[in-house]
């Protein structure tokens, strides 16, 4: 049974590595739901976060295939639920629509949405929270036209202590 997993990968930052890691999923016809690459708390080491739906047993095999990449320090797969997750959603809408719509203001208040920036053309808002909360918010936004949104990847920490031990990689 396929379940949501977040793969966390610590790697060098070489061009080409992104496609090598993506290939490991696409080769097995696993769709990548979201992917972020960023720096990590370890100097010079990058962190991939990849969200996919995959069978748990397959997830473990994929972890080993990722670990096998020369430029990868370590890789982990976490079942969603076994992790602390946060997702950020950024919205933009024409400022005049916002001023005209009480419903939208109400919705933003109800969901604890933060105003990020306003200019005469557009207003920008941000919603952070667990996956279900941001999803709910997006659902309700469907009622309004002219709202654009970008979702960032879930940021994930394992609740357990299985984690990358940098000192073993020197």
């Amino acid at each position: 049974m396929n379940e949501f997993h977040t793969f966390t990968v610590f790697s060098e930052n070489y061009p080409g590595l992104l496609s090598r890691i993506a290939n490991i999923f696409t080769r097995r016809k696993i769709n990548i739901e979201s992917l972020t690459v960023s720096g990590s708390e370890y100097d010079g080491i990058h962190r991939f976060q990849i969200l996919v739906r995959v069978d748990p047993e397959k997830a473990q095999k994929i972890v080993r295939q990722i670990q096998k990449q020369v430029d990868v320090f370590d890789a982990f797969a976490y079942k969603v639920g076994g992790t602390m997750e946060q997702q950020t959603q950024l919205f933009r809408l024409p400022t005049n629509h916002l001023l005209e719509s009480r419903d939208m203001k109400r919705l933003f208040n109800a969901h604890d949405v933060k105003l990020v920036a306003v200019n005469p053309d557009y207003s920008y808002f941000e919603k952070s929270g667990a996956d279900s909360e941001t999803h709910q918010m997006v659902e309700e936004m469907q009622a309004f036209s002219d709202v654009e949104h970008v979702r960032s990847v879930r940021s994930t920490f394992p609740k357990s202590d299985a984690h990358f031990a940098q000192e073993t990689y020197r």
Partner: protein
Amino acid sequence: MHSQSAPPTREPFEPYNFLMMETTKTKSDGQPSPEVKKVKGSQALMLSLLEEDVDQIFGYPGGSIMPVYDSLMDYEQKLRHLLTRHEQGAVHAAQGYARATGKTGVVMATSGPGATNLITGIADAHVDSTPLVCITGQVNDGMLGTDAFQEVDIISISAPVTKWSYQITRPEEIPETIAKAFYIAGSGRPGPVLIDLTKNAQFGELDFHYQPCNHIRSYRPVPEIDQQQVARAAGLINQSRQLLALIGQGVILGGAEEELQSFLEKTGIPAASTLLGLSALPASHPNYVGMLGMHGNYGPNILTNEADLLISIGMRFDDRVTGKLSSYGEKARVVHLDIDPAEIDKNVKADAPVAGDVKQTLPLLTGMVDSKSHGSWHERFYQYEKKEHERLITSRPQDNNLPLRMSDVIFQLNSREEDLLLVTDVGQHQMIACRYFQFASSRSNITSGGLGTMGFGLPAAVGAQVGASTRQVVAVVGDGGFQMTIQELGTIAHAQLPLKIIILNNSYLGMVRQWQQLFFKKRYAFTPISSPDYAKIAEGYGIHGQKVSLQGELPAALDKMFETPGPCLLEVEVDKEDNVFPMIPPGASVSEVMLEPPGQKD
């Protein structure tokens, strides 16, 4: 210990006299003075290859790699270059060289089509764990992404089939990257590495100094041995009664042939081999019981499902070995020794996973296991072997006026004194040759396993003969596969390689025809294939050629071939619709291995 007379060796041949005469205008003696530090990128590449003890390159020049080839001329005495007739030939030759010698094969090609022509060989090397460093030229870095002439994104194209790849765009990166490339290709589970070198990096200058690489911070080529798992494996071995060792290429790659013999001789465990594991253990070894898999021997396949313990040694439970997974090793627990942790539990779950280099883990096991002989269990293998031999070999009519079969040729080769190195292509002839050839020493079997690449045989034999210059290499190739890389006859003739080529011509893409016969109602869709007169083709290249079609003609033709110095080709016309048995039908279990087509069973 089994006894085995030392194989006769020959003087190393000098295949390059001709080449060297062509290039007497070499600019320098190839010895840069040590104080010269500023060098061009292309020269830095030569110096780096020398630092890695490279003495042989297989390749093909072109626009984007011309500076490298220009520098190569200055080093030709030390870095010999063999010009193949196609880049696919170069990469297969490098594979053959690597597998015959244990060294890393080196390939060079130009950008664009030169680079893409390498892909089949790189994929083959990847799946068969062959160490290669492939160096491709690339357009200037300023032109990357502009669809420049002969620009392809070879880094992306090759990513899924390389162990590592890197594009060098600055000359200063050359020494360090080449050092890394060789370290990665040859360490741990070996594999192909591709280095793409832009033209500006070849022309540009750098201060050359070389530091060999033996550590990469993100890379752990050999896993740490878990002593508890070793103890657990030893416990399982001591408790079990019907054990079967499964030998893979890991034994050869790890140079653990002696460690394997010590383990087997102490425990008395019968040992069967995968296609790529062949020759790790001499075929004459008392513990050896034959080949595994779809076209392996009868006994080891059937008895896989009788065994109570399977000990996998440097093999990866390929589907051609396991047949239907759900009924594979039904009664067995599994000990799995492998250097690549990703292989453990991938296809078959291990009760005792022993990650590590078999060269280290096998002796640990040997130290902990009991001495036994397993006589009656061995006896069961012999009974099946007898049955297979009677059904498939001795029942065949032998008469000098009868047509030949593929196995006749292999048995004749076995009767020769010399410790031959066998290179095969892909198809029926491959399965027959590999299964019946009596391998006497390690690294005597070079064939395309995981990828099953037709066209591999002839060029791989070129590389094997170059690498193993004191041994006699024999290429056994089908009429289909031979026509895929027939152009390498040009390479063989040019270098005067003393290679012996046997074409087993059944006028069919035989292996596919066999499946059509068995599983597609004998509809022979596009499998009949015509051939040129191979002996004449050979003669056109200045290679000695012969053809035989009757049993009585074969011995003399083989004698003639082995007596004639230099390259020789022998076309053997064989039974057209002969089939390879034993066979595990696709989707069937190993224990359903058949000795003849269904329906013919008694």
